[in-house]
């Protein structure tokens, strides 16, 4: 442990590093450990060494990358061991510790500093969200913005040529995801005006360009453009040949580092737009990604795959494309079985397991809104998890809206309060975003809440007069007051029932994905029960039980085999594969 012995104030931070100075008050003694333990020290030396080495051309092989991902796992292990209550040492302390000061030239050193800063700030944010007494401050947010933008700039602009450098995909995903997390955290922190001190409010008032949505959108779009990932994916869909896709890449896009950065930025863009309530733009930003069993098994980073599927599913959910929600979600429940999560002792994996489960739970809750309307045949795993949440059926048929609201709040993404808060009147607006989306959803959902009961009756008949069904429903909904009947349009008379049956048909007739871009689709009826009106008589079309054709029994058998295979062959754990 050799300190360079240079006084902090004169340690000669380069101009680009100046902004770290601002945040130092926050890292005062109580937030960090005073000395660097030997184990951490070894980690830091190894990390520096690896970064210096991997950038040399002759050692660009898989072994090196494996070494980096081992180190990355080690980072989680050390965070767990030494930094559960404290922040990691600042980048200046580390530089001093490793005896690298700004006089040492070379972008490798800058990369090391930037990457380390990112690990540091990401960990600090996580720390501030746990119980530890280390809240994120205004200057921390300033720092985090500079760290991320600095890292992206270093990777893209500051060099005229692409860097000859690579990182494990998991690390890249975590960087992109961390970038979004800081943005989200800042917007929420800012919107909680009541909790902000007078000084903080003054600082916020004076800085309207800190962590803005445009800034994040621009950064992600720049990464996507540089890596020309969209062009590569298009080429891949045309030819189904990963080589042809690489051909389509420019000098940046051909490198795994940039391709992965671009690829994950697409996921991030989808997530961000979803959080802003722009579900159309969200799906548009992943227009070149197809969710199939095949593509999903190729995604080696479980968290990225599950985030993609969840956000797409939620967009479909808000667009009332229920069959598509069911399709993407049932793929993911199959996949989670094949990921060997949380079996290692590494804390990184444990965290990942918890996060994956959290999102799978959300997916199941979304499905709970849909299954009462469209009973489908799910695979066993989904059915099992759904059996735990069938209580929603009750809530839907009896209009317990508060219960439904709680459910929606639990399964929706964190919506972002984008408008600058009113610092004088101190009204918290973080709640109002999700409330708004809930109301939009509810007004679309209410007319569909009669479906389960009506379906129940229709199933028993071949034909049924409107008046008879209206009578049945009137007795079902007898406990509702006239006011409620008007408000929810409860179909307990012929006129309202007629409207409802049309509405039923209309709501269940939506686009279904047919293999192209996620937004495209052909209109299909999601009804499993076909009926029509002949004057005032409802006729239910009997579905003839057909003999299973050869084709269908083959498909069934192949599907069984596929599931079996995906359980036996775990997805390739090697860190570099073309991820299409």
């Amino acid at each position: 442990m050799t300190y360079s012995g240079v006084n902090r104030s004169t340690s000669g931070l380069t101009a680009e590093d100046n902004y770290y100075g601002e945040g130092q008050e926050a890292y005062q003694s109580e937030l960090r450990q005073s000395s660097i333990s030997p184990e951490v020290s070894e980690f830091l030396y190894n990390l520096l060494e690896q970064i210096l080495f991997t950038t040399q051309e002759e050692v660009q092989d898989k072994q090196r990358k494996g070494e980096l991902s081992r180190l990355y796992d080690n980072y989680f292990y050390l965070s767990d061991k030494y930094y559960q209550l404290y922040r990691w040492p600042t980048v200046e302390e580390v530089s001093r510790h490793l005896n690298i000061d700004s006089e040492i030239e070379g972008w490798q050193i800058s990369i090391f500093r930037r990457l380390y800063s990112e690990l540091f700030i990401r960990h600090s944010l996580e720390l501030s969200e746990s119980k530890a007494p280390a809240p994120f401050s205004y200057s921390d947010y300033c720092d985090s913005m500079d760290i991320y933008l600095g890292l992206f700039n270093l990777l893209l602009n500051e060099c005229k040529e692409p860097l000859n450098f690579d990182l494990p995909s998991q690390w890249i995903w975590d960087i992109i995801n961390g970038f979004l997390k800081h943005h989200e955290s800042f917007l929420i922190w800012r919107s909680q005006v009541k909790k902000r001190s007078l000084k903080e409010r003054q600082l916020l008032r004076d800085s309207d360009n800190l962590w803005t949505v445009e800034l994040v959108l621009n950064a992600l779009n720049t990464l996507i453009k540089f890596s020309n990932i969209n062009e590569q994916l298009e080429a891949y869909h045309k030819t189904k040949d990963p080589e042809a896709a690489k051909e389509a890449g420019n000098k940046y896009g051909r490198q795994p580092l940039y391709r992965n950065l671009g690829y994950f930025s697409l996921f991030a863009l989808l997530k961000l737009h979803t959080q802003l309530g722009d579900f159309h733009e969200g799906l548009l930003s992943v227009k070149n990604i197809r969710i199939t069993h095949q593509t999903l098994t190729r995604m080696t980073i479980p968290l990225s795959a599950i985030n993609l599927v969840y956000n797409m599913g939620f967009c479909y959910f808000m667009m009332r494309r229920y069959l598509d929600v069911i399709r993407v979600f049932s793929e993911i429940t199959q996949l989670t079985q094949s990921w060997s999560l949380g079996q290692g002792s590494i804390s990184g994996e444990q965290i990942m397991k918890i996060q994956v489960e959290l999102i799978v739970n959300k997916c199941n809750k979304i499905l709970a809104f849909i299954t009462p309307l469209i009973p489908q045949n799910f695979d066993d795993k989904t059915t099992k998890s759904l059996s735990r949440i069938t209580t929603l059926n009750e809530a839907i048929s009896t209009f317990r809206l508060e219960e439904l609201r709680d459910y929606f709040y639990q399964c929706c993404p964190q919506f972002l309060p984008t408008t600058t808060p009113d610092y004088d009147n101190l009204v918290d607006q973080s709640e109002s975003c999700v409330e708004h989306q809930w109301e939009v959803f509810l007004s679309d959902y209410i007319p569909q809440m009669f479906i389960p009961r009506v379906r129940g009756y229709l199933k028993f008949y071949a034909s049924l007069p409107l008046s008879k069904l209206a009578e049945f429903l009137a007795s079902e909904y007898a406990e509702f007051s006239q006011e409620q009947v008007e408000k929810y349009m409860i179909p307990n008379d012929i006129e309202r029932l007629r409207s409802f049956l049309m509405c039923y048909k209309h709501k269940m007739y939506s686009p279904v994905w047919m293999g192209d871009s996620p937004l495209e689709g052909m209109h299909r009826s999601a009804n499993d029960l076909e009926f029509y009106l002949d004057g005032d008589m409802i006729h239910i079309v009997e579905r003839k039980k057909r003999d299973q054709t050869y084709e269908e029994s083959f498909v069934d058998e192949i599907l069984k085999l596929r599931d079996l295979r995906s359980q036996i062959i775990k997805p390739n754990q090697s860190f570099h594969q073309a991820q299409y």
Partner: protein
Amino acid sequence: MEEIKDILSNSKEKSNPGKSEVLQQFVLTQSKENTYCKEANIILLKMYTLFPECHHNLTVCLILLKALAALPETDFVLCKSLIPHNKHNDSGIARIFKMHQFLERCQFNEFWLYLKENEDIIKGVTGFKESILTYIKGVIKLTYKSLHRDMLSKLLYTKGKELDQLIAKEGWKLKENGTVEVRSSADFAAIASKQYSSFKEFSVQSISNSLYLDMNQ
């Protein structure tokens, strides 16, 4: 038009408040010429959420009416998600929300009556009523095998000769007892059997993809 294309294809321009004027103008053009560009309108609404100082109520109303005319698509719900809560009480916006509710719940007669009282709001949107009629006809085709002429008249808010012309144009048959035949029952049976296999279609497709890739590995 060139400028619009530029905004649509360049993701950086999508969050540039300087472009709101152009997009606003484009909404007017769409309303006048009865064209529709969902992407551009959604981009503009998003801009309003990010830069509330640009917000322009009249444009929002026009966008909503255009989205209403796009029924049965869910464009209106998408737009609604992007309109901040505090704007929902604006009289224009609130009235269009009401119209949307009638249409979504298929209370068509109520919708026409409401529209008659609020005719002023759709001024400037060319072809609005025609688009709504197309939507309603679509819903009728989904639901009815046959219905009485009087009922049809109520749903479409069309009477006499005009209604007869409409029936003839759609190829529906008017019987002597006043019943209008919309579709045959065989049509519905066909829909039912199609629905059955739609899930298998996905499976077949994803299997053929995976077989293809397996062979190439």
